[in-house]
């Protein structure tokens, strides 16, 4: 019972807003009234060659959106909805979609391909539509070119959509065969060849078995390499994209092909069009990524080994690779520094050079130095910029001992270039390179810093002067100051920056007020530098930082007062408010941590709080987050005195906890609840009903981003620790939630590192909750209320211990909980603990652990348990 939707779909794209809105409304209504009929009509519309392409495309798009969404919970809802439709409807829709392949209109075919992939993404994991791949491939050799192209495109989308595990190897073989044949040079249609090459990119993840088979791998690699030589630039680009994907997925299989790949990429970098050349450079960057990871694993103190061995491809290619990359540096574009999103061969080449330096370390230095020396004084700015860029790029990787002598010679030259070079690109890169020097060759971690008491003043003078230069240069100068200051963060009172604090603040504030401060990210950089200088202040400079407070408050006040802004002004205003709140946060943290300045600082607390509350009037997520962070810092510094702000602040706290869409705000707010608990202790009690209600709601919602859940559990612990036995009334709600989450996370099988990490975060949150609750009830007559839960807590730890996937943080928390159980419940749990397998073995194991914190936790737990068992 297909409906006539063509006109509505066309109206929905009308330039007339009223018509458009009306059409959208109608579509919504039809969808709500009868979903099956609606979806059927859309698929029929898409398949119908007699309909206008505009309505067909929109029909496909709406169909696609009815099957998939970005947010995980909505995605799941839509999948469930599709699965629950009756079989006949689904079959008919799928038939229409497959029929669309024969359409002469390529947009219609392409749209259908995407929709089919979405359906496959839902159905294949449920073992439905098993015939899909078979029917796609059954007559691939007989069909017309455009059907073949659509089929290959669909295969690519399906591979992108579904997990490799749900497709059996036989089907994988068929897919790969079809795809690789489509890529072959013998394929005459370049549309087909392009679709096949793009499909391979998505299908590579399915080819694990095929890549272990030498013959099949050789064949795939040969076809891919041949495709990089196609006369069609799109095919060449797609083929290089495949090579990049192969370099990360099958690094350990590459050795036999590296010589050929080097020749291909090197030619492409030098001669091919930019999109192809960029991919060719990306291949080497990607190899660097792999080798950096492997070498990191080799150096890791725990494993000292890597699953995949390092083949040292970069080291071997070095003598040819470095000159190739250096050449790219000379291909700068005019004005590339003004465009933040810019990406070109020179930038990709420098980025790759930086990765190469991190991969091989010292060895790169002698290969780059001649290039620098040759070009650094060239009359053409390109030479000077490229030389400086090369130098800046290799500062992370080689040892400070190797670089320091060169930097010592170069520093004066660089300072002169930053002040006097006539070209803005050169100055931009010079300031950036200075920043890199400060980042990697200066600071407490570096044995002999290249910055001395003597040259520091000169450097500062030049940097501050450059902050008056054009925005992109000034921005880099701020960035350089950021790293210069960072190097002094742990210096205490001897920091050579001390005498210049006033000048630095003055200049940075001047920069934030420049009329062009919104260009090139300048204002943000200036505030970031300001924050960093504040972070490295000390007893001596604290009074100067203190003077900054009224200034920042005044600025924030002005943004709060500003009215009737255009939307563009509003955006800038939001950015500025976020920066100012961030700055206040850093100042509060710093002043709160310097004992001598804390009390003087607190005189501003009322005003700061007042302002921050006004900032919440803004609708902007970043601003809320920054204000929330600042308030958390203020609460920690103010301690119990923060109680007086709670009546006004509470509504915003609740608002933050309810913000599911911008889940970072929710997460930050949960963290702030923790800050408040530690600051207010039992004075937070009057607010706990509201907070606990919201937190419990959040946990039971499937709409909240999962990353917020572990902190919510930890937050239970914070609350319990703060209000002690008053937590009793929440036990009946909180404990079942903790138990079921514990149940799930204890048995979770983690397929990948990301999942494992999340599982451990969840476990840690649950354990922190148990610890807080147990400690909160310590010494209370209501301790008995916890006894019934003890067995489950022990079982949770036993199960995790048996599963052997606890990370260090979880282990430490688990030891803490064991000790807390014994300490709080004493003889009530003595026998239970004695029976627990983990209590004895885990503790014994951890007593000899490397990490002293874990050893201490184990000792504590043992002590407490001994007492509980003997008493």
């Amino acid at each position, binding site marked *: 019972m297909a409906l006539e939707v063509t006109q509505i779909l066309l109206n929905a794209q009308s330039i007339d807003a009223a018509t458009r809105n009306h059409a959208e409304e109608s579509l919504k209504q039809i969808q709500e009234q009868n979903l099956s009929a609606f979806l059927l009509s859309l698929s029929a519309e898409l398949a119908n060659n007699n309909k206008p392409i505009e309505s067909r495309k929109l029909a496909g798009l709406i169909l696609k959106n009815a099957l998939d969404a970005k947010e995980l919970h909505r995605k799941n809802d839509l999948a469930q909805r599709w699965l629950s439709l009756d079989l006949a409807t689904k079959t008919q829709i799928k038939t229409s979609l497959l029929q669309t392949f024969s359409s002469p209109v390529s947009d219609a075919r392409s749209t259908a391909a995407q929709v089919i992939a979405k359906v496959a993404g839902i159905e294949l994991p449920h073992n439905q539509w098993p015939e899909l791949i078979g029917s796609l491939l059954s007559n691939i050799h007989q069909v017309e070119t455009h059907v073949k192209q659509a089929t290959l495109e669909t295969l690519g989308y399906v591979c992108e959509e579904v997990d490799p595990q749900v497709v059996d190897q036989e089907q994988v073989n068929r897919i790969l065969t079809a795809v690789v044949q489509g890529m072959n040079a013998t394929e005459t249609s370049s549309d087909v060849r392009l679709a096949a090459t793009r499909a391979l990119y998505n299908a590579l993840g399915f080819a694990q078995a095929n890549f272990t088979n030498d013959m099949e791998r050789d064949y795939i690699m040969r076809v891919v390499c041949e495709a990089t030589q196609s006369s069609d630039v799109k095919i060449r680009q797609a083929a290089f994209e495949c090579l990049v994907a192969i370099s990360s997925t099958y690094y350990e299989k590459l050795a036999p092909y590296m010589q050929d790949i080097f020749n291909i990429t090197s030619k492409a970098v030098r001669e091919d069009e930019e999109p192809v050349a960029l991919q060719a450079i*990306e291949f080497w*960057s990607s190899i660097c990524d792999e080798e950096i990871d492997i070498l990191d694993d080799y150096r890791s103190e725990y494993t000292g080994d890597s699953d995949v061995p390092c083949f040292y491809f970069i080291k071997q290619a070095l003598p040819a690779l470095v000159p190739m990359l250096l050449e790219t540096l000379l291909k700068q*574009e005019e004005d590339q520094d003004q*465009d*933040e*999103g810019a*990406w*070109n061969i020179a*930038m*990709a080449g*420098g*980025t790759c050079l930086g990765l190469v330096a991190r991969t091989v370390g010292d060895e790169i230095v002698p290969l780059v130095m001649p290039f620098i020396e040759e070009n650094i004084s060239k009359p053409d700015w390109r030479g000077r910029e490229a030389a400086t860029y090369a130098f800046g790029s290799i500062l992370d990787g080689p040892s400070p001992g190797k670089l320091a002598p060169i930097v010592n010679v170069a520093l004066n030259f660089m300072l002169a270039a930053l002040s006097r070079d006539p070209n803005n690109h050169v100055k931009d*890169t010079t300031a*950036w390179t200075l920043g890199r020097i400060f980042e990697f060759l200066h600071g407490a971690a570096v044995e002999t810093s290249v910055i001395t008491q003597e040259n520091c003043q000169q450097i500062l003078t030049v940097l501050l002067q450059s902050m008056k230069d054009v925005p992109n240069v000034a921005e880099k100068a701020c*960035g350089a100051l*950021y790293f210069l200051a960072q190097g002094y963060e742990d210096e205490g009172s001897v920091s050579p920056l001390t005498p210049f604090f006033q000048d630095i603040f003055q200049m940075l504030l001047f920069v934030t007020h420049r009329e062009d401060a919104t260009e090139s990210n300048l204002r*943000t950089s200036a*505030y*970031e530098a300001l*924050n960093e200088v504040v972070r490295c202040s000390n007893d001596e400079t604290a009074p100067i930082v203190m003077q900054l407070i009224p200034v920042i408050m005044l600025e924030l006040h002005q943004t709060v007062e500003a009215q009737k802004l255009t939307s563009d002004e509003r955006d800038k205003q939001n950015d500025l408010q976020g920066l100012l709140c*961030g700055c206040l*946060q850093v100042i509060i*943290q710093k002043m709160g941590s310097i*004992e001598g300045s804390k*009390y003087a600082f607190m005189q501003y607390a009322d005003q700061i709080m007042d302002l921050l509350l006004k900032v919440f009037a803004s609708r902007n997520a970043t601003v809320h987050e*920054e204000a929330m*962070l600042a308030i*958390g*810092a203020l609460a*920690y510094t103010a*301690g*119990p*005195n923060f109680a007086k702000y709670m009546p006004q602040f509470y509504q915003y706290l609740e608002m933050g906890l309810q913000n599911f869409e911008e889940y970072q705000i929710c997460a*930050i707010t949960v*963290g702030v609840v*923790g*800050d408040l608990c*530690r600051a207010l*202790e039992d004075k937070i009690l009057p607010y706990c009903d509201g907070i606990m209600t919201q937190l419990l709601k959040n946990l039971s919602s499937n709409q909240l981003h999962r990353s917020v859940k572990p902190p919510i559990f*930890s937050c239970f612990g*914070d609350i319990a620790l703060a209000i002690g036995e008053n937590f009793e009334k929440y036990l009946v709600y909180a404990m079942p939630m903790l138990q079921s989450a514990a149940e799930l996370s204890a048995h979770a099988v983690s397929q990948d590192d990301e999942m494992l990490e999340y599982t451990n975060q969840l476990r840690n949150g649950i354990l*922190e909750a148990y610890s*807080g609750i147990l*400690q909160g009830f*310590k*010494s*209370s*007559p209501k*301790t008995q209320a916890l006894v019934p839960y003890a067995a489950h807590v022990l079982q949770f730890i036993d199960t995790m211990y048996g599963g052997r996937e606890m990370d260090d943080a979880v282990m430490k928390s688990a030891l*803490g909980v064991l000790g*807390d159980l014994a*300490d*709080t419940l*004493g003889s009530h749990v003595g026998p239970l603990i004695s029976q627990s397998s983990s209590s004895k073995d885990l503790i014994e194991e951890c007593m000899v652990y490397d990490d002293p914190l874990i050893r*201490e936790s184990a*000792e*504590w737990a043992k*002590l*407490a348990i001994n*007492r509980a068992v003997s008493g």
Partner: protein
Amino acid sequence: MAPPPDHRRPIKRAAISDQQRRREVALRLQADRRSDAQNRARQLASSVLSLGPEPATEPEVEPEQEMSEASGQLAGRSDFDPVRAARLRGPEVRKWFARQLMLPEWMVDVPPSLDRDWYVFPRPSGKRCFVVSSNGTTISRLRNGSILHRFPSNLPNGARAKDVSGPASSYSILDCIFHEPDETYYVIDMVCWRGYSLYDCTAEFRFFWLNSKLSETGASDPPSQYHRYRFNVVQIYECNLAGLQASYSGQVPYVKDGLLFFNKHAHYQAGNTPLALVWKDNVCSQYVLDTDSKGQIPSQQQVVLELQNDGNLTTSDDPPVALGSLSRDLIAQSGLRVGNLVRVAIKDERMRLVDGKLDLGELQLVGKTNHSRAFADTYSKVLFQHAARHAPLRIEDLVASIQSNSSMDNSQALDVEMEG
């Protein structure tokens, strides 16, 4: 120009934004503070637990009168680290405890806002000690860590009587002065109560807690079989004129030894702190001027300093302050070694302030100190003693400071009105 691929960060672009860094720092701090909060409870408990087995036979009370002065003397401040303390045994336990007391500086000038930010109370004369009650016993330890008394008390878990309010392991720690004449512990601060740490609480809150909690326990009851000594709270005043007057000249049931001032916002901080101050004159204390090793007041001011390897003599502040030096010959002659505490006399004409720092010039050696003495004098003590001999800070000065504060408030109020 096309943008770079998603996962590829152009080398000239910052790795993380400062906002991301702020977020990460905030999260890290929160996590650290959470584990601090949880560990503090655990580790304090375990440090107290492990003290249990230590033998009680240590009545080596420091005989020197220094004890009653409770002046700030610590050789280098150690952070509060009960984890380490938990592993210590015997003499190390003493050393550790010796560093846990908050030691007031001597008041050499009047802090601003005395009337608004400070408390004052008359300090009982006697032995400053930490009193810990846990697991059915109560132990008091002197500032040098040695045990003064081990006894039953009505403090929480302070006696082997059944305490209904919680497990025996929960401990309480009080900062007290033991007043010999009436055998009473005068409680001047509360550090932990029933396992609940008050280290991070302001003085305002600690005193409030002290007053409300101590009375609940019966610790102030007269001595009995299971309550060997009485614990009394000291009356604490706001440091306004009335409070200062009451502390200075009011009647108290104990022998007064000067006045103690506590900043209301200060946390309990182990070691020397300028946020607690001691002041005295002849009206409110019998011991204004230091005595020498024979108990006499010497004609010249004497100070106790620590000998450093460069010949400098330093105070016990952190960092130590060098006040003068001894010549190499003299050191050799007297058989002194680095780290020795020496008593030196100050020749008045040599003493001067250079750039706001005290310089005593070359000092006259009196001798080594009594061996039970553990720490050199602090800088503020030397200054106070010097002032006491020459231009003492008088009660009138304190009164004047409070009055000027309140009159300043008035004048500000006037200004506002005049502008209006």
